[in-house]
């Protein structure tokens, strides 16, 4: 039982990271109907900016953890969001209204570019981070098995919940959120009604990148090591999560992330750790066959 709860906790923490990345995929797909393939790399850049910021703060002598965390969080969000904005501006906007596969190829090219860019500038080696947040709560059950909830896991949960609350507020009750929902329904009609579509799409990318930056920071803290290649697998899994939850749906993205994170944690805990990624993809295939629109997705109506 204790082991089960431990896996549950790990799975939830992991799932929240996936969920935050998945929101970026889901929003972009909902609005412009493209798979933003470079989103995984944006997450990776978020992780790298975080680790660079931590190192810089360490050199400047700022070592009080809460302050360092807050500063790094802000820096990572700002710079990563600018990356997201630039990627949209360079690689996707000129292709708006082009045929369906063009932005996808452009996105794959961008993904390769960003990955190599970080590899060239930061080196291919794994980057370790000195633990910033340590410790946590430990419970012991009757059989002497301990359950640990680390501070990082609590931080991940709290931060994710706060972000989700803020984000839901943005979507439901701000002009930007209204514009986003309008664009999601019909881009052309939204433009005719005076919504600045280009600006809305840009901001969508900025928000997605900001959430990915938070995910990158938390993954850096959680695992303690990063390299230039982490974006690919995280990106694919987050996309899986987005599809799982019903693409275009924000709560769905979070839910999909949690399901995927839990599945992965339990699979690694009870079966084989080598095949945990296979398990994630198998779940995707099975869900798509039986629930083609995902868990919370709206059924797509085909029109002639």
């Amino acid at each position, binding site marked *: 039982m204790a082991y089960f709860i431990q896996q549950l906790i790990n799975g939830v923490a992991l799932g929240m990271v996936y969920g935050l990345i998945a929101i970026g995929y889901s929003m972009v797909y909902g609005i412009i*109907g493209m798979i933003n393939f470079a989103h995984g790399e944006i997450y990776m850049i978020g992780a790298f900016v975080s680790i660079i910021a931590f190192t810089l703060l360490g050199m400047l002598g700022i070592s009080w953890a809460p302050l360092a965390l807050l500063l790094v969080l802000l820096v990572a969000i700002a710079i990563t969001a600018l990356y997201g904005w630039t990627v949209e501006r360079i690689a996707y906007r000129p292709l708006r209204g082009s045929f*369906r596969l063009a932005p996808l190829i452009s996105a794959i090219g961008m993904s390769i570019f960003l990955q190599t860019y970080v590899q060239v500038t930061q080196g291919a080696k794994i980057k370790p981070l000195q633990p910033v947040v340590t410790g946590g709560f430990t419970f012991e059950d009757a059989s002497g098995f301990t359950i640990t909830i680390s501070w990082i896991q609590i931080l991940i949960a709290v931060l994710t919940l706060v972000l989700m609350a803020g984000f839901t507020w943005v979507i439901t009750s701000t002009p930007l959120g209204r514009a986003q929902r309008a664009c999601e329904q019909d881009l052309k009609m939204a433009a005719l009604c005076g919504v600045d579509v280009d600006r809305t799409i840009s901001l969508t990318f900025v928000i997605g990148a900001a959430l990915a930056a938070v995910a990158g920071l938390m993954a850096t803290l959680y695992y303690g090591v990063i390299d230039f290649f982490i974006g690919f697998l995280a990106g694919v899994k987050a996309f899986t999560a987005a599809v799982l939850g019903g693409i275009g749906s924000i709560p769905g993205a979070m839910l999909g992330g949690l399901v995927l994170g839990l599945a992965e944690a339990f699979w690694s805990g009870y079966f084989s750790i080598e095949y945990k990624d296979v398990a994630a993809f198998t779940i995707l295939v099975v869900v798509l066959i039986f629930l083609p629109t995902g868990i919370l997705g709206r059924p797509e109506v085909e029109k002639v």
Partner: protein
Amino acid sequence: MTTALRASAAPSTASGIGPQLKDAGLAALVAAVLLAPILGMETTPGPDGRLTLAFHFDLVAIGVVLVFLGRLALALFLRGRPPVRAREGGAVSAFVSRNAAWFGLAGLAFAIALPLLPFSSRYVIDVATTVVIYVMLGWGLNIVVGLAGLLDLGYVAFYAVGAYSYALFAQWFGFGFWMCLPIAGLLAATAGVLLGFPVLRLRGDYLAIVTLGFGEIIRLVLVNWYEVTGGPNGIADIPRPSFFGFPFTRNPAEGETAFHQLFGLEFSTLHRVIFLYYLALALALVTNLFVLRIRKLPIGRAWEALREDEIACKALGINPTNTKLTAFALGAMFGGFAGSFFATRQGFISPESFTFIESAIILAIVVLGGMGSQIGVVLAATVIVLLPELSRELETYRMLFFGAAMVLIMIWRPRGLLAHREPTLRLGTATGATSLSARGGGP
């Protein structure tokens, strides 16, 4: 980059370069913020194992200046020009498509003559073989993506199935290349059917992600199933092909005749390289011929019809799932053939060769070439293979260059290098209407 168009072309004729300067200044500012952390501060492990930063702000300054000048030059160059979107298609690609047969023949003649040309060294033939493999893979994937309109991001899985089937059958049962080739194709096609059967009902983008997942599953299985696949170490000592039973060795085994003895030639390692080149070329030509012919059969027509409008197809009594499944299986089969050839050429295979990037490259070849265009695939494969070769000295920068080129080519030619799609059938004088539904989107 081309977004400058709307900003600079709209106020167009206004004299002075004030707006352009401001624009370039902003771009430079953005570049400064973007480059400062990643390029400007390199994390390096310090003496105690903790990370320290090495500052390269000189590089950032160079980058910012380059962005400023580049942006300014682009804005001035594009001032007053029509938006790039009007340039889709174009006269050159129309000309090439109209005379595809002649270009094809010329290309074929060149390909056949290549090893005999004076400048052909071992290196040239090796690169040419790589180009031909990618052409073949591109043609195979073209069935799935170009003709049937199914987005497959895991094509490399079938390539891997082909390569591993050859390697394993050769290792365990001692089968030769020619015997393994059909087996590899059959197994790859079976894998295609097994994957396709449950997922082909899905919408396009879901299909893309499921195929991507499948590609990763195959790779992970190859990495983890040590007993059979050798895990990350791969399989070595895969038998090399023989010239219809005559091996390319200096000293053939007792009772065997080597290739050079058969023809009374001086032994040269080049023989095998040239033979492999022609073998690849023959396989690629078979693929091409097959695709050209099947396009004219009912099934080929059904693929293209399905790509354009699935609902209309259903109304006409075409079974979409079966039709898609055929495309998937046939595409996979050619991937399997190519994989088999890859295994025999390299003599060594490992999961490293079958990563997602490989799928992306093959898909890029198909899309860059102009979907459905056979000549376009040849052109795109040549560009994609040669681009990194040209910058081989700058080893680490190859992929950087490659990714940037992919983005730029897409912006320059969103429909591919040779994007002139003529309907294969034409009624009366109606001209080819490309799918309108794909042109929705931005204002």
